[in-house]
């Protein structure tokens, strides 16, 4: 049995993206031009982000004084953490950060469970209406969230809710309104479906002979084999959850439940401090960039798989 699983795991793991085509080496002139273009492109994509992080350590007067030259991108002058302490004084940053982490982690965690269970039923069980269910899920993929954002706002405002004081109407200004609508995700179901469909069905039969029920097969056989699919779904659900802006802007009013992305709006009001804006932007970006660089292969493969894999 373990042999079968190891074999399957090997077979179904998506091939890593190897971009080196391994063809003949291009001539020298083309190599030089190619390298030059690459370096220019790298500056275009990299320098603005470098500028953001560097400026977060400078006072506003120096940011503007440095703009004209190369020192805009260099850590020179009166560097300090003043902008960072300013961020914490100006907004309840720790609360915003906690909210964002809570919302993202719950959305991804619950999303993996709910979507993989649905995909398991669709890919490996037989029931009436199966094709129709899959068809409806796939059809919803073309509808962008922005189309239904306003009707959804109206709808969640009518949903029943409960707190320590009893029942009431409306989900606005809560955590759940930022989590629950995004747990079930048609694209995640599709990714799991595709992956589960590629795992040999003989495993299910073997497990049934051993007396395992379907839920056991899902939990102990199929899910452990689906590591790459779980990673892909986790990444593809985490980024939008962390980056959400339009929805929390509309459904949250109190600072107690607002996420970090909406928090940036506070810095545009009254005396604008660009240094503080850059500091805020850096704190909410750099951890994600580090995660990205650490798990680069998974990130790139996940995002590419939402493109043309399969």
């Amino acid at each position, binding site marked *: 049995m373990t042999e079968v699983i190891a074999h399957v795991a090997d077979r179904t793991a998506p091939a890593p993206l190897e*971009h080196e085509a391994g063809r003949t080496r291009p001539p020298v002139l083309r190599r030089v031009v190619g390298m030059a273009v690459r370096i220019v492109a790298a500056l275009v994509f990299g320098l603005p982000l470098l500028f953001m992080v560097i400026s977060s350590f400078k006072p506003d007067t120096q940011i503007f004084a440095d703009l004209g030259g190369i020192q805009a991108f260099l850590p020179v002058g009166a560097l300090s953490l003043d902008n960072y302490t300013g961020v914490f004084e100006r907004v309840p940053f720790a609360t915003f950060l906690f909210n964002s982490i809570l919302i993202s982690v719950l959305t991804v965690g619950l999303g993996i469970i709910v979507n993989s269970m649905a995909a398991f039923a669709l890919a490996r069980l037989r029931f009436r209406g199966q094709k129709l269910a899959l068809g409806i899920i796939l059809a919803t993929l073309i509808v962008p969230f922005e189309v239904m954002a306003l009707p959804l706002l109206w709808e969640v405002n009518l949903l029943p809710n409960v707190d320590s004081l009893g029942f009431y109407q409306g989900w606005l200004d809560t955590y759940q309104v930022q989590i629950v609508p995004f747990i079930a995700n048609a694209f995640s179901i599709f990714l799991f479906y595709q992956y589960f469909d590629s795992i040999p069905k003989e495993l299910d039969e073997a497990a049934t002979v051993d007396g395992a*029920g379907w839920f056991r097969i899902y939990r102990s056989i199929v899910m452990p084999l689906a590591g790459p699919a779980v990673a892909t779904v986790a990444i593809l659900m985490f980024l939008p959850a962390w980056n959400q802006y339009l929805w929390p802007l509309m459904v949250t009013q109190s600072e107690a439940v607002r996420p970090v992305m909406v928090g940036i709006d506070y810095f545009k009001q009254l005396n604008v401090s660009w240094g503080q*804006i850059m500091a805020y932007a850096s704190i909410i970006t750099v951890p994600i960039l580090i995660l990205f660089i650490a798990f680069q292969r998974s990130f790139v493969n996940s995002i590419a798989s939402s493109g043309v894999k399969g």
Partner: protein
Amino acid sequence: MTPAVVAARLEPSPPRRRGPAGSRNQRTIAWLMMLPAAVLIITFLIVPIGLTFVLAFTDAKLISPRPAQFIGVDNFVRLFENGTFWASLRNTIIFTIVIVPFQSGLALGLALLVNTKMRGTNFFRTIYFLPLVTSIVVVSMLWLFMYQPNGLINSILARFGIQGPDWLGNPATALLAIILMSAWQAMGLHMVVWLAGLQTIPADLYEAADLDGASKWQQFANVTWPGLRQTRTFILITITIAAFGLFTQVNLMTQGGPLNATTTLVYQAVQTGFRQQQTGYASAISLVFFVLVLIVTLIQRYLTRDKEVR
């Protein structure tokens, strides 16, 4: 991801086996496993989509003591008489028409650039990808500063003796400025998708072309470009639909101004449906947006079918 693309991938699904457990038991389990996802998808995806069609013909308000009244096509009449609506429709379409070829073309160039065997390919790919992992909220704030009349871009231009415009304050350049930064942010995504497409082209096709003495350009025109057909369709459709949803950049950088030069359909929907609480009117705007998406999907289906016939 569109149903057409998805459906194409689903076709080679192997025949399902009858499960070893009784099929009645299997059906119950299947529905139980589908239940959480089904409830969530119906509540937060299918109902809001349906509501868009219903509310667009009512005077529904976000918060209102009396129930919504059916008012026929009044919302659409008001919409079509409103200059701001036409400005937002025009801007949305211009944004899309410009950014689709611009962004996908440059992304293809980058992909071809990093697809050759050369030192540091991984490093460059990572750099090109960084803006994508950065939230659009952060990118908007960063570029808001870079675009200031005395900001980073104009300071650099001044070094070369060029007097830069007030990028976001001038109706002639505001939309262009937003297009440039949006392309900068998302290009890494489409580079990776193009790369994945390039990987699917068998290397021996290039070897055969080399043997036939084909030039690099001939190889691109006769091997690469036809080989990217599916990738191309996918990229065009996803950029187009994403471009229709333009909101965050506008909300953070220009608030639709100056003189409605950057207002968009989604921005108008949020203005009316959230800030002015006119859900019915906002739903009418959303419906126009939905029709645009449908038209693009139908065109894409038509074009791909046409190509398969040839």
